[in-house]
């Protein structure tokens, strides 16, 4: 429950609850094991079977903005969608756009900056096409010495190794500092 319900919606919710789900009528004593207050309304959708219970989260979610996607959409890749896919550019050789689903600036910026370090990369950039569509598009042009896919994979491998190095360095420092006590 993250926001205040505007008054008309509360009345509407109460009315609908009393009509469709009589047990939740405010005057009735709440039965244990049946009354649920979800902190996370969207999870009801895939967890519960049964029509009545699935109505309740929809009513609760009316209090949120009508068109806003659910929060878990930011990081859960739906069934059937690939996490990474790419399209070669039709007009320019050695150029491709990688579409990464359910990622944001955290990955986009770090991959882009690493691609800039590659001598064979002529162009590297990323964008979020729309703030409410949770994906990024990374565009890479390379010389003929390399290919965008190779440059992309190389960048990710280098970042992985850098993080390994950082982790080892940090752990060593923590051991050193704690060892001093």
């Amino acid at each position, binding site marked *: 429950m993250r926001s205040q319900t505007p008054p008309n919606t509360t009345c509407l919710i109460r009315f609908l609850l009393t009509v469709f789900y009589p047990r939740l009528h405010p005057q009735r004593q709440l039965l244990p094991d049946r009354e649920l207050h979800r*902190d996370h309304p969207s999870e009801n959708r895939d*967890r519960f079977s049964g029509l009545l219970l699935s109505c309740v989260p929809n009513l609760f979610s009316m209090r949120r903005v009508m068109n806003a996607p659910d929060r*878990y959409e930011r990081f859960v890749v739906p069934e059937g969608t*690939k*996490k990474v*896919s790419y399209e070669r550019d039709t007009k320019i050789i050695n150029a491709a756009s990688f579409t990464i689903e359910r990622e944001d600036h*955290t990955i986009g*910026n770090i991959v882009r900056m690493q691609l800039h370090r590659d001598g064979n990369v002529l162009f590297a950039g990323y964008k979020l096409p729309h703030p409410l569509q949770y994906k990024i598009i990374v565009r890479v042009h390379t010389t003929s010495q390399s290919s965008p896919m190779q440059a992309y994979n190389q960048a990710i491998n280098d970042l992985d190794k850098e993080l390994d190095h950082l982790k080892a360095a940090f752990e060593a420092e*923590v051991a050193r*500092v704690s060892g001093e006590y």
Partner: protein
Amino acid sequence: MEGASYQRFPKVKIRELKDDYAKFELRETDASMANALRRVMIAEVPTIAIDLVEIEVNSSVLNDEFIAHRLGLIPLTSERAMSMRFSRDCDACDGDGQCEFCSVEFHLRAKCINDQTLDVTSKDLYSSDHTVVPVDFSDTGSGFENNEDQRGITIVKLRKGQELRLRAIARKGIGKDHAKWSPAATVTFMYEPEIHINEEMMETLSLEEKTSVVESSPTKVFGINPHTQQVEVVDREAYTYDDEVLKKVEAMGKPGLVEIYAKEDSFIFTVESTGAVKASQLVLNAIEVLKQKLDAVRLSEDTVEADDQFGELGAHMRGG
């Protein structure tokens, strides 16, 4: 052409390390890496927090969802979180996301019997797993403030006759989903400043002018050495990148007296944790999560082949 690596080799130096606070320097890496670490620490390091509340009895002054909201925000010690499964991914449950592998159960029973107001706090939440408990905020050192801090986070206050009984399920989640799962109180990083004072130009200034330069900075960056009467840098990191000193120096008609640069690859991180995860562990978990994200984003062989075929076919069809 494989083989050429453009890897960086970052260096870390820890300045201060406490249970919930860490200050360290990160060198020889890019701002994008520093920012990625910051973003991951705030939004993507998993923690455990109460996510489902079943209320049996509530005769307090706060309504059910109010109390459920407050319970969700209580930080729980989440050492287990990195190895736990998300309840949406758990196949051991019978579908309701409440099995022992993916969730922790809590219960709370409180009833006010006497005339004094009963303070229901996070210490009254009893866990089924002793490794996942509400964070204890009491200061181990101070005996003076004993009663104040040791009571835990107030959930609700009850009058005589009021009762609260509930069962809560805590699950793993990330800050991106809801802020209750964020393990970081604040994470900040700043560029390390490099300050140069032009000594020759400084010689031409009178003591009043030197004092006015020193005092133009809102934070105490410069000071006047009592012995040598020279302006020197007292605290380099107090500089907040306001350009007040530079503006003052220009107004005085002596540009170039002081030059301040931000070192592009040197960062000073300040990490404060809520107590759910230790500060040092938070940084390590963030690095781990970032590695996992990069692994997920790698091009796999089937991605390359599938689209390669399309690419070839498409190019062929287009007459390319």
